[in-house]
């Protein structure tokens, strides 16, 4: 801001204070939320597809779904860990849990979810590649437990909902940041999971049946549409809360966040919606839409995470 600009005579100004503390939760937390959406999203969308279609229509889904989820969840947990200023004390969450904190509840749920996904990943992987480590005792033992996959899958799907949404509760417990309204954030988290969950599966759906591919395109289109509507509602019509308006001014007034937000909307929501609606038969374009959805979601999450941290609190 230009310091020689005119200030209204009625407006009080701060003439001496400490500097604003800046961004506290930055790109690592954005990456954390983004990766978690993929990790839970592939399970949710995969479960939906398995409920609606025969396994034979999606031959590689059984082992690739938990594998993608496993990788994404490890990215999520890795960035959660390294964002801590005392990462070795992460163990305190398990040894001294404070149950009113959604960070604690989320960490426990995410850990359990990762355990379940890991079991699914190892059993399906060794079953799919039956010649891999054929004589290894551990591999044999894991293959013998293949039936576990179907038994724990319903619990994993059930757990995927709170795991994907608990970050919204952390945001609502962040009482200082009024932009994060729990109702809206819960739904945005869920839609983000469906959005990048379907996008991730689109990338591996080469050999799947046409009806499954069309359904994936529909899930992507609807999730980006609903999410986009929510963002537009918040962006244009947040008149009621003064602090929310002040927060959104960091996007409305142009500059870095304005560019980032609209790039997110175009890449993550508008482009995937039109491609999924009009060109769902075109595999190359659908993969392009999936990639732009990944990029767009990251940028949208980054903007929404950082702008509430820009306003002075005291």
């Amino acid at each position, binding site marked *: *801001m230009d*310091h020689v600009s005119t*200030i209204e*005579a009625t*407006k*009080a*100004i*701060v*003439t*001496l*204070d*400490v*500097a*604003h*503390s*800046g*961004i*506290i*939760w930055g790109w690592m937390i954005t990456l954390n939320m983004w990766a978690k959406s993929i990790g839970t999203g592939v399970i949710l969308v995969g479960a939906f597809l398995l409920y609606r279609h025969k396994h034979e229509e999606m031959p590689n889904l059984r082992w690739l779904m938990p594998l993608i989820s496993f990788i994404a969840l490890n990215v999520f947990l890795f960035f959660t860990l*390294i*964002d*801590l*200023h*005392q*990462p*070795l*004390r*992460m163990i*305190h*969450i398990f040894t*001294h*849990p*404070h149950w*009113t*904190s*959604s*960070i*604690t509840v989320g*960490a426990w749920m995410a850990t359990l979810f990762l355990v379940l996904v890991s079991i699914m990943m190892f059993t399906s992987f060794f079953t799919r590649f039956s010649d891999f480590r054929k004589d290894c005792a551990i591999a044999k033992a894991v293959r013998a437990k293949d039936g576990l996959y179907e038994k724990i899958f319903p619990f994993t799907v059930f757990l995927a909902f709170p795991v994907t949404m608990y970050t919204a509760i*952390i945001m609502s*417990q*962040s*009482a*200082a*940041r009024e932009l994060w309204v729990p109702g809206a954030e819960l739904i945005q988290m869920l839609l983000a999971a469906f959005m990048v969950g379907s996008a991730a599966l689109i990338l591996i759906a080469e050999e799947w049946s046409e009806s499954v591919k069309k359904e994936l395109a529909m899930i992507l289109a609807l999730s980006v549409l609903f999410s986009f509507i929510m963002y537009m509602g918040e962006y244009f019509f947040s008149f009621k809360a*003064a*602090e929310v308006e*002040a927060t959104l001014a960091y996007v409305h007034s142009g500059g870095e966040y304005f560019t980032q937000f609209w790039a997110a909307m175009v890449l993550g929501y508008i482009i995937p919606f039109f491609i999924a609606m009009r060109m769902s038969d075109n595999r190359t374009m659908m993969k392009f839409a999936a990639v732009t959805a990944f990029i767009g979601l990251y940028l949208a999450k980054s903007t929404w995470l950082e702008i509430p*941290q820009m*306003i*002075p*609190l*005291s």
Partner: protein
Amino acid sequence: MKLGFLVDLNLCMGCKGCEIACKVENEVPLSSWRLRVKYIDIGSFPDTSRSFTPLRCNHCENAPCERICPVSALHYLDNGIVNIDSERCIGCAGCMMACPYGAIYMDPESNTADKCTYCAHRIESGLMPACVVACPVEANIFGDVEDETSQISRYIMEHQGDIQVRKPEKHTDPKHYYVGGGNNTLNPQAHERIEGYGLFNNITKLDQIGSPNHSILDRFLDPIFGNHNDHLKNESFADMPNEAGVHHEEKGEH
């Protein structure tokens, strides 16, 4: 017992004595603060006035920082103080996101969250908080708000109708009160804040979110091998070599 603070803004003259006393008492590192006095100018020349607002942790009865802390590093003491256990803190910064008053900082030396504790260590020894002792005009009043004979309770009763807390709409139930405050002084949205510019013009902004010399790798290695950035620590003045003093002694001067 419920300890509380009251600041009479009509008395505060912005000397920053409390701020310095707090820094020294608690060895608050550079670029961080537990208590600060904010200057706000109101009006246009020649009808201008300057107000001073000391800002510190509000020790809320319904503290969002305590609720969000995943390991109970932030906890209530029996006397109402919201205390912090830096040995337990994992440095997630959740409390910094939750505090509506921006009163918590990440200590760049310990890499844990820290804040005003109403000088809990002094209170335990029967002493007043350092800022109360330092205030030359007794604008800081501290005591048990549940004891109707205490100075703070009597002050509150004498100034009924002029007692304010910051952001009451957050339902945090702060135990930090102001007399003589107004929207301009207590509501951060009510005044213009031009970052980087103030009385001393173009203030250098220091990194407040942990130490810039404390990399991600250091976060893992320091607890095992110790902090190699010891030279950056905020040593007390008594421990620092006083070159001027040495020269004087060499010359036989006093």
